[in-house]
């Protein structure tokens, strides 16, 4: 067990959250989200306005998303301690979390394709834009499964000194519930359940980043505790 490496992976969370937010917000201007009701011309105009800035923002968002894998690994190592070995929940989390990282990277690549040739037909740019947003928010399933796995592992931790406090298990279960409305963007182009709506964009975004930071604190505590016990 290498505590330094473990802490390295845990601290990657801070880097990810900061860099991802910089890419999303001031650079790519994807906060708030484009309206699903925007016309092809409006969307094309967005991509044509400052393509280099858009490309940089997307590059940054995609570039730091690999760090999610490191964080997932850190959670895996903590869950190994909860389950006393590579239990099935630990493996579920590992695989679901890894899939989740993919769905942060691929939308950025799709949007990059749109920004790569902003002069193409607006209909095509609209298509790529739609695809990106759908790919970012709709795959709630891996995040839900990942969080449920963590929740169940925390609650099922029967060690004398639990790896994490029990409320974290319930927190993860609650976070899982909050990701579910993201899937409903498929039915709506306006309102709170559209991809720029409060229940699909704002709440999952805030919840995801908040969960990241809470888990960061707890993972760090857990790693230091395990190092002391070893």
């Amino acid at each position, binding site marked *: 067990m290498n505590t330094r490496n473990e802490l390295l992976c845990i601290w990657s969370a801070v880097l990810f959250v900061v860099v991802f937010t910089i890419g999303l917000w001031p650079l790519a201007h994807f906060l708030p989200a484009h309206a699903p009701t925007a016309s092809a011309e409006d969307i094309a105009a967005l991509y044509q306005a400052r393509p280099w800035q858009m490309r940089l923002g997307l590059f940054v968002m995609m570039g730091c998303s690999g760090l999610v894998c490191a964080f997932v690994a850190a959670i895996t190592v903590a869950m190994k301690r909860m389950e006393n070995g590579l239990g099935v929940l630990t493996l579920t989390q590992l695989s679901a979390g890894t899939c989740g990282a993919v769905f942060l990277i691929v939308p950025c690549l799709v949007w990059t394709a749109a920004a790569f040739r902003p002069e193409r037909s607006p209909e095509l740019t609209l298509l790529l834009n739609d695809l990106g947003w759908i790919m970012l928010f709709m795959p709630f399933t891996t995040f839900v499964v990942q969080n449920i796995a963590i929740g169940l592992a925390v609650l099922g931790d029967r060690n004398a000194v639990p790896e994490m406090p*029990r409320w974290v298990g319930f927190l993860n279960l*609650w976070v899982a519930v909050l990701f579910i*409305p993201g899937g409903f963007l498929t039915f709506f182009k306006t309102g709170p359940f559209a991809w720029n709506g409060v*229940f699909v964009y704002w*709440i999952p975004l805030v919840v995801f980043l908040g969960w990241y930071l809470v888990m960061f604190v707890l993972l760090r505590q857990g790693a230091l505790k395990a190092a002391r016990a070893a």
Partner: protein
Amino acid sequence: MSDNTAHRPPHLPGETGVWVFILGDMLMFAAFFIVFMAYRSEDVALYVNSQRTLNQHFGALNTFLMLTSSWCVAVAVEAGRADHRQRAQAWLVAAMGCALCFVVVKFCEYSEKIAAGFTLTTNDFFMYYFMLTGLHLMHVLLGLGVLCYLWFSLRAAPSADSMRTLESGASFWHMVDILWIVLFALLYLLR
């Protein structure tokens, strides 16, 4: 089984962690309620007219079922506290029965609406109607699972842990009841 709850010292029902979930859920639904009300205020006529198509009797029946199931769970907890485990299990079964009826009524109600041509995307009111009652229904189903789990957990000899588990699950179920109480008022009774 008399009620001697008057002078107990402060006691947290269930375990601390479950309240993170319950309060979080109540916060989320509070956001849903407020967003619903805000959007409603922008097009009151639409909402009032759409509300007229709702089956008020199903709504009222469901409220009765929710309240009754909550009562059954509360009685079950009292029974568990007095170590009348089988009686507690019986009351849990009664609660589960009410919950199942709730689910059946909901499906009847949904079928009736869909058959009449009202779906998730018909208009804003029906979007909220299906989304909010749908999310609530998911909680009812989850709650049914929790009640089942509580029934099984009562088979073992009681311990401090088992009472806490019973209270945790019961608290979750009562939350589901509270959410329906507000939803019934918002979706069926506003004018």
